[in-house]
């Protein structure tokens, strides 16, 4: 196994690295092409706004090579928070921005009632829509994870939606299309549950 955490200046890279280090020593934080090519598992962490993140990703990561490893070589890929959101076709945070478009959908602001605040911060549970998804091995319905976000992916085909979560409205919390996975919450901050989820991801061959 060789895990590559894609480095584009996202603030939470270190936390993701710390958690994965408890599972394997074969983990690196990198944005160079050879590390991406040699990796068995690719992780795109994220925190912050869609447009700013996409800009940094385009500036710092060899996106074409990454796309080749994910779409053609079919390496397991996990996007976390904004790292999940950029899988969609476009994002509407501070203007319209193009995403990778690997999974269909648009990133929109959570449409919450007036009495709820954004960002949605805290521990919330997932309603599992696809039982037996490999990423959610060992989990029962309503497992709690830690969320910090104001936007979420919407309009994705039902077949790719693994779970949703309720916060005034229901939004997509886990997606999966073939080897591509995305989670809106932060496994690296979700204690044991987060570690089990990461372990599930690393067990994907």
């Amino acid at each position, binding site marked *: 196994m060789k895990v590559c955490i894609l480095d584009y200046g996202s603030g939470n890279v270190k*936390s993701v690295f710390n958690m994965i280090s408890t599972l394997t020593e074969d983990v690196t934080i990198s944005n160079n092409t050879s590390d991406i090519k040699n990796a068995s598992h690719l992780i795109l962490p994220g925190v912050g706004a869609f447009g700013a993140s996409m800009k940094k990703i385009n500036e710092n990561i060899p996106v074409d090579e990454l796309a080749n490893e994910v779409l053609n070589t079919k390496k397991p890929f996990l996007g976390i928070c904004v790292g999940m959101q950029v899988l969609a076709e476009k994002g509407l945070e501070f203007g319209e921005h193009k995403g990778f478009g690997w999974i269909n959908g648009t990133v929109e602001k959570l449409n919450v009632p007036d009495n709820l605040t954004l960002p949605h911060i805290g521990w919330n549970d997932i309603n599992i829509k696809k039982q037996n998804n490999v990423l959610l091995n060992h989990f029962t319905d309503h497992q709690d994870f830690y969320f*910090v976000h104001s936007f979420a992916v919407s309009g994705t085909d039902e077949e790719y939606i693994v779970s949703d979560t309720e916060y005034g409205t229901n939004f997509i919390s886990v997606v999966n299309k073939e080897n591509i996975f995305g989670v809106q919450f932060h496994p690296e901050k979700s204690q044991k549950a987060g570690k089990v989820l990461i372990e599930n991801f690393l067990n994907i061959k």
Partner: protein
Amino acid sequence: MKKKRLIPVVLLKNGFLVQSKSFKRYQNLGNPITSVKRLSEWASDELIYLDISKDENYDMRRDDIKHPNRSGILEIIEDVSKVTFMPITFGGKIRSLQDIEMRLSRGADKISINTIPFENKNFISEAAKEFGSQCIVISIDAKVTENGFSVFSNGGKTDRNISPSEWAKICENEGAGEILLNSIDRDGMKNGYDIELLQSVSSAVKLPVIALGGVGEWEHFSEALEKTNVDAVAAANIFQYMDQSVYLAKKYLYENNFNVRKPDLLLI
């Protein structure tokens, strides 16, 4: 459904964790990293780590096996973030955007500020723009004065002559993400939260309010959750007194049907 949070607060004073009474008297509790590891294993929902040192001396005065001496807050943040996998807020001595950046890049998820917004009016909005509202926590230390509740800064020394609810509203408009509301009068007194204070602020803003100050028994947590609109209940000293404290407090709330995460003991 989003859960109410139970949050231990630890106070760092010159390299040691301490307990505090009335913002004046401090007792040594020991190593700044090992006790945090325990709090993580008891499935705390988050951790708030406040640096209340008056100077820059973080010497633990010893170099133990596996616990090397630490000379600065940034090294301590790095160590703490290696042993816990939950959201961590660091507060204390934050004077600039660079101070925030340095803490976030070493593993902090949020930072808490208390004094600087009184000196630099644009600080909250600048910090929120740069790092996002979600990581800017405003710590409000309140005290009863002859004019009612008033906000104090500089470690409880300077009366800012503004009510906590008004100050919280200003901070909300500037882009703050959360309010950490502490009562100086209740600090270390074990006689329960100042419910009136919690009500006044949690009804004035939409921001999540974290209650702090005065918890001496688990019932004080439930009292705040029942009577006020706070999003989280926090405490410092009580979590240091017994083994599995956070777990037991969570269990108490869970068994009394409060909307909290299921209690758990983690080995991670």
